[in-house]
């Protein structure tokens, strides 16, 4: 197998700010082309009906901008917390061998702390979701 020797400024194998910024620029240009094309090609005929919210074919009553009940936020926050857990565990799993036992110990501690948090939320009733009839 040929060793990778090419180490120019554009090399994907050599981390460097220059290639990253080129990459970013390409992504931005591509996205703006796509956005432009779809907005220019797609014909728009705005009308009162098209701008109205869809609610099973009926004109909606009142506003949808309400004070949401707390459970919605709780669930959103719990989701964020436990989703971040995934990001750490996956990145640990990728480099699991080179991190060795020390890394293993650290991620175990991390998971245990999170589990403790989950149990705490559970006990506190944070996961009790749904209408009152289901609770009894």
């Amino acid at each position, binding site marked *: 197998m040929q060793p990778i020797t090419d180490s120019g400024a554009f090399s994907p194998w050599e981390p460097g700010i220059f290639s990253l910024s080129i990459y970013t620029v390409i992504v931005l240009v591509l996205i703006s082309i796509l956005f432009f094309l779809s907005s220019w090609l797609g014909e728009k005929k705005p009308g009162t009906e*098209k701008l109205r919210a869809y609610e099973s*074919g009926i004109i909606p009553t009142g506003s*949808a901008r*309400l004070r949401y*009940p707390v459970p919605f936020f709780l669930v959103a926050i719990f989701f964020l917390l436990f989703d971040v857990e995934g990001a750490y565990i996956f990145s640990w799993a990728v480099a699991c061998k080179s991190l060795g036992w020390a890394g293993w110990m650290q991620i175990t501690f991390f998971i245990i702390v999170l589990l403790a948090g989950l149990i705490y939320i559970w006990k506190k009733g944070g996961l009790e979701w749904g*209408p009152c009839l289901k609770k009894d």
Partner: protein
Amino acid sequence: MGTMPEKRLMRLADSLNPLINWARSRSLWPMFFGLSCCFVEEATAITSRYDIARFGAEVFRPSPRQADLLIISGTVFKKIAPVVLRLYEQMPEPKWVISMGSCSNTGGMYDVYSVVQGVNQILPVDVYIPGCPPRPEAVLHGLTVLQEKINKQEKPARSIFHLGKGIQGTVKPVLTDRQTKSRDPRGPGMEGTGIRGTEIIPPYFPETRTELMWTPEPAKIELNEQDKSLAKTLEDRFGSSVKQVPHTSDMLTFNVEKERYKEILVFLKTQHTDKYRRLEDLTAIDESARRNRENYPDYTMVYSLLSLETGSRVRLKVPLYGETAYTKTITDIWPSANWYEREVFDMFGIRFEGHPNLQRILMPHDWQGHPLQKKHPGRATDMPPYTLADAQKNQPRDAGLFIHQADSDNEMILNIGPHHVSTHGLLRYIVTLNGEEIKEMEMEIGYHHRGAEKIGERQNWHQFIPYTDRVDYLAGASNNLPYVMAVEKLAGIKVPERAQCIRVMLSELFRISNHLVFTGTFAHDIGAMTPTFYTFREREMVLDIVELITGGRLHPSWFRIGGVASDLPEGWKTRIDEFVKIFPERINEYESLITNNPIIKIRAKGVGKIGLDNAIEWGITGPNLRACGIDWDLRKKLPYSGYENYDFKIPTAQDGDCYARYLVRIEEMRQSLRIIKQAAENMPSGRYKTDDYRYTIPERKDMLKDIESLIHHFVNVSRGPKIPKGEAYASCEIPRGEQGYYVVSDGLGCAYRMRIRTPGFPNVQVMPMLSKGWSISDLITIIGSVDYILPDIDR
């Protein structure tokens, strides 16, 4: 010279058209607007048997935001037309429209006051799929035709490159009555000439010879000891305010004074030994068009009750007088009377003192007149055409007018339906939500009101049979049975054994077919997609058998007064045997998929509970009642059509929740299969139609041989038989519960009053009770488990 590059640009754009059209025609994103029977065939088209994915359309969209094709399938009602129009207008560009089924195309057989005579009066239509209902294959063909049309006729490139002109889906002017569209049933160009024959408008219509025909008296039943003792008790207790009707064809009947009928109802419900606990039906008759008018009041209120202990029925008739008649409400005796009384108010204009919410229920809130009054026009073609302007003007009522309790800070009013995937038809739930929890709920029905009862007053006795099929479009031929039985009861027609056996076999096949749809959709409502594909596979097998026997799929219209339309064809037995052999294993498959599925259990157990007492009070029937722990089934308790000869069980469950309702139906399929097996094995020989040809359409071979049969054939297929003056009620256990027909004859070729008592109406009235306090997702489960169907609720 400046035009040269422009021309080149145009040519370039033109050459791009085929490419764009190719892409568009192969990624159709259809949105269903499922209004009635056609929708079931449309839904069948998206199951695994039909490969709809080749159109890029394997998933049908529920919302206009995601769709470029609107498929309007079924009857377009005046009450729903504004919603159809709104959805069309909310679609992005490009957009196309397919109009599916004869009802959607022209109004079809539903030329009645509530139906729009063709969706093309309010929307531009690209493709028409004819048929009533079209087969699933026809839906696919319609899509192919649309693809061809897009490929050949659309010029999208100029439009999307901003070069001017070009089109984005079809935009053409809607048809206008009498200019570009003819509502004459004979087609365009006939406007100048009058329609031959006469309109049947009671009391008199010229040149009818029905008046000259002689018929025997209507059938008379002998009352049993129980009925006699009840009659005596009532006479002793209430004296002259109760008068027993001497001649009845179906059940014990009393004429009761308006002042005392509430007392009598309370007595019958609570104090009498038989305890008539169920309000079977409540309706009215407009007597203003009777032929001997002097013998009748202006209106008659009809209350029929049922005793679950003894299985006996009793009917009370209360005469009402005056142009704007009124009487007292009985909602304090039976809560289920709420909707029934609203319906009578809506249809007849009779008011009820003390009713908590006396508003229109079936007709739009701004409708003029009361449709079941004799003076109200019956045909839509007799009324001004429904146009685009009407659709823009006649909006559904605002949800805020239904629910007043909403606390504006935390609670939100949400419309679920009429056009919504989960409502199983056009039904509008208006809920107040706190988070996900349902705090208040109201319903609006009538989006599917096809005026079946009014049609019954103008079609002759035979012509009405196809309309009964469509009352509960998933129950097919089982719908014919209560109607023909009511007429047979009234006229005293004896049905041969073979015909009865065939009727039972077909009814049970349709019970299986219906429960298969239920099983699939119920699981689908909870979130499981796979069961639908399995159950529709077996449903197609059932429908294939039905097709072999009757020639029809959804609506065979195959039962006749006095028997069935024709004898069983060759090879029917082998097909039934094959099905009986494989089906038990298939039911086991569903059970392993659904019954023990932990997700389904959690979602369905304990949800949407109703107790037995409440269920009886509210008039719930069918599997939903049996899920509350009572083995009440007409097939066992009041056997008809020879059901007493079959060995089968009545499945029940105890909890009265969604899961119990599911369990009952699964087991019912097994029992139905047993009945089918027995019917097929013991099929008696003999006639398939009565030999009493006075009221029936004679067998063709007889008609060709002797003059008597020929005469009866001629008369009965043209102007229809004359059924003796009287009334009769017959009810059957159709898949969804008890469906009854109350036919009143004035001795003419058509019914004077055709009342349909459907299971859906009371079954759905309890929805707020079942779903308050549960979340939206539970509401969808409850809807699936109640298994209602809209034409059966709205008729």
